[in-house]
């Protein structure tokens, strides 16, 4: 139980540090923090699939991107309410995840990985080519941020960095708690059983395919939620969001942080994002450094940052 308490303390410390960020940090760091939080939500949704359900998806960016486009399209059509805009991203991605999951989950292992990659690239192709809806490579630009419920009375709007950062933090905490509960629930245990030994689970009477599909859709929905936030944060949704390197980056974040822990992917997301945005600001050859970093992690810390603590 000491590990559990250590984890809780670490999380609270992280939360306090983050929540106070708008008070003291330079604007640039608030921006990075916002991006990192959004990426952390995205990474947690992949950890649900990879860590708990054992599904190595290499096309998770599809759901991130669909969420961003759904939110962007709606916001550009003058929907100006926070909750519906967040939900539409999640719902759209869940809807897309149903057929993709139903098809890809027929395969396992490396074939599942390839199928998810393929479907994500199909969606990327659609985003580039279905110009009447997506405006092609330019993407949706000028996506406005919505008003807060009870706007005006609060004295601030989401267009300011601080409040928007806090919104992302709140959503991230909510997602974390939800996933924490989900993975400890009977449903989560069933997923673990399927990950460990699907054949046995079938023999016990679990319709394993439905469980895997269900978790795939939930993971997609949460990625879509992250996508919604990304569209609001950036003010645009472009095909880049669905590109395969994004799927690769989020996978790296999960593994570098340490999968099957939820905390690990959050740390991993911060690391990757800070490395990416931080390095690209200060160093020319940042991709090189980032790539070298990943290589080092895979070679020397195969269980991720969290593995460091767990081993102790």
């Amino acid at each position: 139980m000491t590990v559990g308490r250590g984890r809780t303390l670490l999380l609270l410390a992280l939360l306090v540090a983050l929540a106070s960020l708008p008070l003291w940090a330079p604007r640039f760091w608030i921006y990075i923090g916002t991006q990192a939080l959004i990426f952390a939500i995205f990474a947690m949704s992949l950890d649900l699939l990879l860590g708990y359900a054992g599904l190595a998806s290499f096309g998770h960016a599809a759901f991130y991107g669909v969420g961003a486009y759904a939110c962007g399209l709606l916001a550009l059509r003058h929907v100006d309410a926070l909750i519906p805009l967040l939900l539409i991203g999640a719902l759209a991605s869940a809807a897309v995840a149903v057929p993709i999951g139903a098809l890809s989950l027929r395969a396992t292992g490396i074939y599942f990985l390839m199928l998810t990659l393929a479907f994500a690239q199909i969606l990327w192709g659609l985003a580039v080519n279905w110009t009447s809806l997506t405006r092609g490579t330019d993407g949706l630009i000028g996506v406005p941020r919505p008003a807060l419920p009870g706007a005006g009375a609060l004295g601030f709007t989401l267009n300011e960095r601080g409040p928007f950062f806090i919104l992302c933090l709140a959503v991230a905490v909510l997602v974390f708690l939800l996933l924490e509960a989900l993975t400890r629930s009977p449903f989560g245990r069933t997923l673990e059983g399927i990950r460990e030994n699907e054949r046995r689970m079938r023999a016990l009477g679990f319709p394993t395919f439905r469980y895997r599909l269900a978790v795939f859709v939930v993971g997609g929905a949460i990625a879509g939620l992250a996508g919604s936030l990304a569209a609001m944060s950036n003010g645009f949704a472009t095909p880049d969001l669905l590109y395969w390197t994004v799927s690769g980056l989020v996978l790296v974040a999960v593994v570098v942080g340490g999968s099957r822990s939820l905390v690990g992917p959050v740390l991993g997301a911060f690391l990757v994002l800070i490395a990416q945005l931080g390095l690209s600001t200060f160093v020319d050859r940042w991709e090189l450094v980032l790539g070298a970093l990943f290589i080092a992690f895979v070679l020397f810390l195969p269980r991720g940052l969290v593995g460091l603590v767990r081993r102790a």
Partner: protein
Amino acid sequence: MDVLNLAHGSFYMIGAYTAYSVVLATHSFWLALLIAPLLLALVGGLLELVFFRRLYRHGHLAQVLLTFGFTLVFVDLIRSGYGPTTRSIAPPPSLGGAVHFLGATFSSYSLFVLGVAVVVGALLLAAWRRLRVGAVLRAGVADKEMAGLLGIDLARVFTLTFAFGAGLAGLAGVIAAPEFAIFPAMDASVLILALVVVVLGGLGSIEGAIVGAAVIGLGYVIGTTLFPQVALVLIFGLMAAVLVVRPTGLFGRR
């Protein structure tokens, strides 16, 4: 080999850039055709020795991540060496002409590419089926311990295979260079097409890769001609359709 190497596209890209440099320096396409595969084989062999060796036990995910890291490194190296702009080289003068055949016109270079592809494919298939290499690799992939017991130096075989695969990717890069543009993101597009081909054909099957390449190549060309916007979507749709019906690919076992 049961190894998933996302950096394979990078080998292709480096092959193309090597060709560019060699042609720039010596004006000889043929020299490039010789040097680039050798260079890439060397790079591939070294990478296998230093990095991949440690990862076979860790499964596909570790390989995906490691090689993903390498793709970033390679792209950036290329970009720092050559800049982000698109380069191109001309086909060798002897192949600059055109050929009339069945009422249509083909550039000699296209026919040359076709010829090389057929020869390489045939050689690979023959080697795979006739020589011990194929048997050894299949045994090694199926059961590493057993192959070890039979006195096969798997480590060496794997290094050489990896080097050979990298060399082939380099060769492809050289050959593609006069036909397509050379630019730093060329690795991704070709890698994804290659993965699609291999998965469509069935992993671990040379026959599958050849058939897969033909299907995808034709599909891509037909797709680009008829519906230019959605050619890529079409390709992936094709792959998804095949895998849905046969989850291990056209020629895949199990």
